[in-house]
């Protein structure tokens, strides 16, 4: 025993026994320097709450998307050259189609694990946007967007826009009937913009729709341009998070100047690596057992073919709903035409995202409160904000329902025009109602909260 003690004290005095970790530390210090900074960062504090996992879900979805995307890129042909299909999916045997669509069929039917990876890629994208939106809502309702995190709020919102747009690019690539229909609508929306619209549409698409080069044009945008932008913004987002550290919920020992949580190494690192693998596992299970976007059923895109009940991916549903619900108010101005679709497809997204981007500043202006904060609020602490958020969310939900109005109408046997009119009324009436109700409930809760 005493011998053992002697050994350890000697070890301390003469430089500890060379464990692999110590050797690594020495190597790092020799080659990079700054081992003291690194040592401090190993103890970086991560507050413990399920709420902080939401952003991590989004980050991990991005990793899954990049990994699966690289696999898919090895097999996809971004070409609209016409080929005659003779692959394993016999119902389409002998059908003329684009090389792009044919390569997606081969990828799905002939490449081993191809269909799995394709479906995991698609599911990861769907979960990615969902995680971003829920993360955003958490930030909103707990006041995490306040100073000093306004810039990171802007970065987060930009990420949502880029990721949603890249999702749209992604499901446009297979050149199946659905993706072509989506591009057709995108062309029409671009055309509707005053003054620059028609030129913008033909310049972006390389001519009047349908053009033969659009897939080749979308491909680098989808696999390089937007992912690079997303990766850059993610890096900035995480860098700021690292510098400013996480917010924390109120609790003993916690205030705007002091944070409490687990150290990054080992507790947090183990946990979050575990969560990453769990998430990857769940998405892989989706990809294995839940069919998504079976492009072989839709057939190749032809401008003269139409699908029944064409629907975009879920995160475009609100836009689809707005486009379906907005009345056909085409306006003639002198010798010009302002198509009705301009309002729901171009103006409305601007109206939705502009106040979201400005929200941290609007909030501090309205409250005349510009303090530097690190402790979060509970949602009901701010009844006004909760009401705005609930109303906003209701508005988007009604639009989302509108995006599937034909599906609901046929599933429940309702008349489509009647349902459409009902939704047009609800989208105006329901948000203020929900907001008022939320305000009343939150108000009562916050009073009780203040008393206790």
């Amino acid at each position: 025993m005493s011998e053992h003690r002697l050994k350890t004290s000697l070890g301390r005095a003469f430089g500890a026994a060379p464990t692999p970790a110590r050797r690594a530390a020495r190597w790092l210090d020799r080659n990079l320097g700054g081992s003291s900074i690194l040592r401090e960062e190993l103890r970086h504090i991560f507050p413990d709450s399920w709420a902080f996992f939401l952003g991590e879900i989004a980050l991990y979805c991005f990793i899954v998307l990049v990994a699966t995307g690289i696999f898919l890129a090895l097999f996809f042909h971004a070409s609209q050259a016409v080929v005659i299909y003779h692959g394993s999916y016999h119902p389409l045997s002998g059908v003329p189609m684009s090389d792009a669509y044919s390569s997606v069929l081969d990828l799905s039917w002939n490449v081993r694990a191809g269909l799995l990876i394709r479906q995991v890629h698609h599911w990861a994208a769907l979960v990615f946007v969902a995680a971003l939106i829920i993360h955003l809502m958490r930030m909103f309702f707990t006041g995490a967007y306040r100073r000093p995190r306004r810039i990171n709020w802007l970065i987060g919102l930009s990420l949502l826009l880029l990721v949603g747009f890249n999702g749209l690019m992604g499901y446009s690539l297979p050149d199946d009937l659905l993706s072509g229909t989506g591009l057709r609508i995108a062309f029409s929306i671009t055309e509707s913009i005053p003054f620059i619209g028609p030129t913008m549409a033909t310049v972006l698409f390389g001519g009047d729709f349908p053009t033969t080069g659009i897939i080749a044009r979308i491909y680098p945008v989808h696999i390089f341009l937007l992912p690079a932008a997303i990766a850059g913004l993610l890096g900035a987002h995480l860098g700021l998070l690292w510098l400013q550290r996480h917010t924390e919920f109120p609790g003993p020992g916690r205030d705007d100047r002091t944070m409490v949580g687990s150290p990054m190494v080992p507790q947090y690192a183990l946990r979050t690596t575990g969560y990453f693998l769990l998430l990857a596992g769940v998405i892989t299970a989706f990809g294995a057992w839940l069919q998504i976007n079976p492009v072989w059923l839709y057939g190749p895109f032809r401008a003269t073919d139409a699908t029944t009940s064409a629907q975009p991916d879920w995160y475009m549903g609100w836009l689809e709903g707005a486009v379906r619900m907005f009345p056909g108010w085409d306006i003639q101005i002198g010798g010009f035409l302002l198509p009705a679709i301009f309002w729901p497809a171009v103006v409305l997204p601007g109206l939705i995202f502009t106040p979201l981007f400005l929200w941290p500043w609007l909030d501090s202006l309205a409250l005349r409160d510009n303090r530097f904060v690190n402790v979060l609020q509970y949602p009901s602490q701010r009844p006004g904000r909760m009401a705005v958020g609930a109303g906003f969310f209701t508005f988007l939900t009604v639009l989302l329902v509108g995006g599937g109005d034909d599906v609901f109408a046929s599933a429940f046997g309702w008349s489509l025009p009647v349902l459409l009119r009902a939704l047009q009324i609800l989208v105006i009436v329901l948000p203020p109602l929900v907001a008022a109700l939320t305000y009343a409930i939150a108000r009562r809760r916050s009073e009780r909260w203040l008393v206790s």
Partner: protein
Amino acid sequence: MSDDARQTHAAPAPSGENGAPGGHGPRGPGWVPTWPATVGLVVTLVASVGFAVSFIRDASTQWLGGFLAAALLGIGLALAYWGRDLAGDEVISGPYPVPHEDAEGRAALGDALDQSVQVITRRHFLTKMLVFAGGVFVLSQVVLLGALGPRPKNSLRTTSWRAGSRLVTFDGVPVTRDTLAAGTFLVAFPEGHLDSADSQITLLRIGADPHFKTLAGRESWSPEGYVAYSRVCTHAGCPVAQYEDQAKVLVCPCHQSTFDLMNGAQPVAGPAGRPLPQLPLAIDAQGNLTAQSDFTVPVGPGFWDEG
């Protein structure tokens, strides 16, 4: 993992000699079983082999993905459990970084920036030239957009229909006066342009239906009860493909715009704001259906200088 334990700073995990997690030592307070992590890792072991074997044997997506998912979930579960329960519940606290709100620090930063800016802007003329030349350079790069595609010219306004174009079906078979019975319809194209997206039409034979309203100026457009409308939706450009016989309407499958075939294809429901353009028809000496001319207004979705 009680709240009390979390507030103690740097509360060491129950480890070491008394109740080592995972060890066979005495199970003291706070002892945590290791078997969940073990089970997770065993699942990963087995499933990884399963994944490789099912890949080699070219098994179904369900097997392949099932094994891969299980492998990921097993190790994920083990690590999450390890990080949450086995690694101990070390809680530490520390300061948040504070912005330099002191006047002194801000002044110092301002001075430093000021000096740097002055080094540049001291040269007034050069500074102005720099801004000017830089701005012109950036603007000049906009011309690169021109490489992407042509300006629209006439392509949005015209289709492939010309005076005398014969109507043909999907297979290129000419449509004659006997092709359709009253109350039926088909999709037609101008001869030689089967792939022309903006020229597709819905051809109906109304016959002598008394409900059919001939619009002013279009009296000669529907010979022998044949009437043709553009099949490109005026809302967002999808093919208006659903024909509802009872209501005599065409419905677009994309956004459910509905057009009344008995009344100039006016929109009667859904988001479209303008009717489907009508193609003036004629019947030539051989009994073939032909177009009198191109459409008289642009087909498809609206655009700014269409009006």
